[in-house]
Structures are given as C-alpha cells and as structure tokens.
C-alpha cells in the first residue's frame, strides 16, 4: 500500500511553464526555510510555496555570503590572492588553494616539485575526510539524530589537530601556495595520523550501525529525493551525487591530477540515487579517503624540495592566457578559471563550485512534491555549500 497524496488542489502550470500560484486563494502558504533556520546548509534560503504538507515550488535564494572574491582578486597581486582564496569555501578550503595555485603555475609555466605534490594530495584527502565527517553529522541531524553529529564532529576535531600540526591553523590553512607548499611533515606525523585514522574508522563503524542500519533513517531516506539519470548532464551533477546514480564521474580518475595516478583506488558507485544511497556513497568515500591517506603516507618520498623557484612576488607578471583547473572535492567538481593579461594581477578569476548547480537549478527541480519535513534532508544530501555559489 503506497501512500498517494491528494494533489487535486495543486496549482496549474501557466503557459510559460511557471506555476499559477494565487496567494489570494488561501490554498498556498509561503514558507521561508532560511536564512535563519537550523535546517539549512549554511547561510542561504529556500522560499517554499506549500500546499498541505507538500512543496509545490521552491526557489533558492543565495547571496547572503557574497563578498565579491572575484572582484577582490582582480585588485590583488598573484601572491596576495593566495591567502584569501581559501576563504571562499569553509569546510574544505584546501581545494581553493590547490586549484588557484595550479592555475597560476600553469599560466606562469612553473612546475611544483614532486614532494610538494604529495603533500598537496595528502592535504586534499584530509580535507575531504573532514568535509564528509561534517556531512554525516549534518545528514543525521537533518533527520533529528543529533548524536551522530556529536561523534563525527569529535573525530573531525582530531583531524583538525593533524591539520594544525601540519599547517598551523584549524580551518584556513593557507598552506598550498603557487609554486609548492609551505612546510614539510612534522616529526612523527605519520604515526599520529594513523591513530587519528583508526579513531575515524571506529567512529564510522559506530555511525554505520546506528545511522545507516537504522530502520527509521532508512524509512526517511530510501526512495526520497531521487535524481533521475537523465538529469545528471542537464544539471551538471558531479561528484558523489552523480556517483550515487551510477555515473562514475570522478575527476581523480577521469583527469588525474597531482599524484592520484600513483594511488590505488576505484570510484565508488551506487544505484538508486536517493538520499540513502548518497549518504552511503559518502560514507564509503570517506573510508576510501582514509585508505588513500594511508597510501600517501606510505608511498610518499622521504624528503624533497618544497617550493619551485618562483619569480620575485613583487614583480611577478604572468603573460596573457587562460586556463581551467579542476579537482574532485567532496561535493563534486571544483574548478578555477583564471585569465591573465600580462600584468601583475589576475584579469579574471571564476570559481566553479559544485553547489552552484546542485543548490540552484537541481534543488529547485527536485524539491517539488516533497514533504516539508524532507526538505532539510534533501538539501543536506545534495551536500551544498552556499559560499561557493556566490563567492
């Protein structure tokens, strides 16, 4: 017996495809989910029009976090841009640093040393673990299971300790700069990292037992928020959201960068493309990242050069050119489009955050006919993060 809601009162489509919502009829209710709302991923908002308990239209509003990075970077020299890029995306700032550094290196014709590339990969994978841990807590929290986020945030704190040890900062590391990285691994890092990874694995097995095996969690998430396979390309779905639908999009495999060719891993694929599958893909990705960090620490060279030779940063001019650098961050394809014009400043930087498509066009499409109670769960399961939409 499947539940079929009565949708006879729902608004009709107008000729131009928009919905004929007459607020005067009293049949519909405008409901703002956000920006001051605990069930929203960061500072954004969804303007819901609801009929009964179901959403008939959802419009995403962003821009609450707009700082104008792309403009600010046009006023800063190439090296001055480096400390601000990480501020674009808080949970996983390292991708900004890497993509920006790689774009500058490519246009300036610099090659980062091998050892620096290993450290970069290590940092990116550590950041990915952090981001997924944050996600797990958020996904459980969106269904009212606060205890998971307590556990995962605790182990995330342990990971932040490793970051602090390596880079000196918890959140904004400012470690990967054009030309290389700032420092080498501290003494005994690998061993302490191993302890942290073991802790993460044991916590994730607890999380698996309490959250993924939980009947109520399954009831809320299985079959809800399905992304059809033919929407994948039309809406530019990337990362775990695509992999949960069986599309093996993974930049680490498709266009390997840094030292990923030397690491041994396979993209994890799902089938059903619903909230549960996406959550499960991310859990497995997390464990894969744990494995990758182990591989990196085992395979990386003992020591090496940290920085390539870069020109004096005060007189650093890069000839005219444009490029696009992408990487696979925890939410999907993260990319930097950099245009230079021969001066000491970038001409134009454009950041392509995966949430740009996930949280805007895709969410607005998927939110229709969803129960109000599931909106938060859907948003979290798309793993959107507003600062990378508006920058």
């Amino acid at each position, binding site marked *: 017996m499947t539940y079929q809601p009565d949708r006879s009162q729902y608004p009709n489509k107008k000729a131009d495809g928009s919905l004929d919502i007459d*607020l*005067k*009829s*009293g*049949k519909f209710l*405008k409901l703002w989910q956000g*920006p*001051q*709302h*605990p069930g929203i991923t*960061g*500072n954004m908002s969804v303007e819901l029009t609801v009929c009964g308990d179901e959403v008939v239209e959802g419009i995403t509003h962003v*821009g*609450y*976090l*707009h*700082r*104008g990075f792309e*403009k*600010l970077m046009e*006023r800063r020299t190439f090296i001055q841009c480096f*400390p*601000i890029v990480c*501020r674009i995306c*808080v*949970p996983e700032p390292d991708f900004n640093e890497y993509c920006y550094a790689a774009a500058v290196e490519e246009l300036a014709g610099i090659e980062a040393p091998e050892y620096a590339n290993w450290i970069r990969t290590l940092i990116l994978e550590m950041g990915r673990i952090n981001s997924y841990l*944050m996600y797990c*807590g958020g996904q459980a929290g969106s269904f009212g299971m606060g205890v998971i*986020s*307590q556990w995962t*945030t*605790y182990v*995330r*704190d342990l990971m*932040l300790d490793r970051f602090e040890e390596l880079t000196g900062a*918890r*959140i*904004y590391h400012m470690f990967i700069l054009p030309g290389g990285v700032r420092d080498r691994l501290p003494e005994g890092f690998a061993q302490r990292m191993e302890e942290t990874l073991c802790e993460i694995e044991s916590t994730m097995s607890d999380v698996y037992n309490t959250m993924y095996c939980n009947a109520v969690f399954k009831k809320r998430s299985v079959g809800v928020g399905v992304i059809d396979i033919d929407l994948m390309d039309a809406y530019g779905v990337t990362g775990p959201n695509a992999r949960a639908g069986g599309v093996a999009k993974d930049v680490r495999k498709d266009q390997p960068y840094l030292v990923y060719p030397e690491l041994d891993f396979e993209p994890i694929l799902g089938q059903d493309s619903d909230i549960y599958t996406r959550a499960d893909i991310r859990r497995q990705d997390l464990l894969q990242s744990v494995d990758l960090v182990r591989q990196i620490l085992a395979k990386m060279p003992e020591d090496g050069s940290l920085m390539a030779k870069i020109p004096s940063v005060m007189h650093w001019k890069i000839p005219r050119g444009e490029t696009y650098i992408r990487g696979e961050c925890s939410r999907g394809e993260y990319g930097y489009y950099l245009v230079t014009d021969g001066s000491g400043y970038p001409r134009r930087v454009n950041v392509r955050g995966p949430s740009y498509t996930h949280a805007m066009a895709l969410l607005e499409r998927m939110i229709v006919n969803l129960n109000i109670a599931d909106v938060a769960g859907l948003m979290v399961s798309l793993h959107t993060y507003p*600062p990378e939409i508006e920058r």
Partner: protein
Amino acid sequence: MKEELEKRIIKGPDGLEFEVEPLRDYYCEAPPTVMPAAYSKIVEDLFNWARSESIWILGFGTGCGAIEMRPLMTPRFDAYRFGVQWRPTPRQSNLFVISGYLSVKTLKRVIRSYEQMQNPKYVVGLGSCTINGGMYWDSYNTIKRLDQYLPVDLYIAGCMPRPEALLQGFADLKKLIRSGKAEGANEYAEKFEWYKANQKKVINDWDMPDYNW
C-alpha cells in the same frame, strides 16, 4: 515590494473572506523602549546572574565563523557546560553571535532577527571582519563596522577565532552581564534613530517596517 507583502483579501477554505496586510499584521508598530532594570538591586543581580549562566545563542550562522560553532557545542569544547546552548528561533535567544563578515543582504536579516529577540539581548562580533572589515576591507558588499548597525557587547578577534577564544569570549561576556554592563538592548532603544539611519544608508531596498518585533 514583493508580492507576498502586499495587502490582499484572502478567502479561507470555509468561505470566509478576510483581509491580510503583512506589513501591519506581522509587525509591531511601536518603537522599542528602554526597559528599566528590576526595582531591587538584589533581584536584578539574581536575574543578571541567571542571564549570564544561561546564554541561549540564536542559531544563525551569518558567515564562515559558523563552522567553529559546531566544534564548540560538541565533545571537544562542549559549551553546554557553561550554560550556552542553541535556540532555533530569535524569540527565545539572548545572544546573537555575528559569525563573521556581514554582507548587506544578510545585514537586513540580521536586523530583523535581532529586533525579534527579547530584551535584554547581547551581540558578540566574531572575527576580524566584524571589527574593521578584516580581509574584506575593500569589498563592496560587506559592512566594515558592526557597531554602526547593532550595539555590540563584545568582539572576538581572529580569522577565524578558535573555539578556545570563543569560550573565553563567553566567559568575558558573563562578567559583563553580571556587572550589569551589557545593556545593548537599551542602548539600541536609546539611539534607535541613529541606528536606523545607519542601517538605511547601506540597505538600499528597505521593504520592511522600521519596527519589526
């Protein structure tokens, strides 16, 4: 003005027609007033002590500082020990942590949320960007001084401030409250005109009433 803010006549499901005017119905028409402290000093001291030991933060992550809020409430730092906890609605919160830079668009929401909070209420500015713009000193979309728009009790400097700094900030705020110096709400009521003028100077499309609590 947005469509849902317009005055309209609604026909209810029972056939009854009634008029809705959101800008009047949902808002209060009186400006905020200065609320005096309790008559007796002992009672006020007791209340101040209770206020300082039970700080309810509004769950509104306005900027990137919000990411350090989660570690703050979880095992490592566990601010619950100090009577700090989240409330999801402004009506029930006492402390507004402005977690980082405020874009003009967010400022508008922040003002609304702030005004819905009940007296006495406190504001903590988190991060350098609330003090003088910080990293975004030349940005066209972020405000540079929070105290021009809201009465700020305390700033916590850093980009981003560590949870330890936040805990210290709470401890300092408690001292302020206990000594009766955290009267931001009354200050806001006293200098209401000045704050409103400042707010309207940066918020170009002001489509809410002046008083909205």
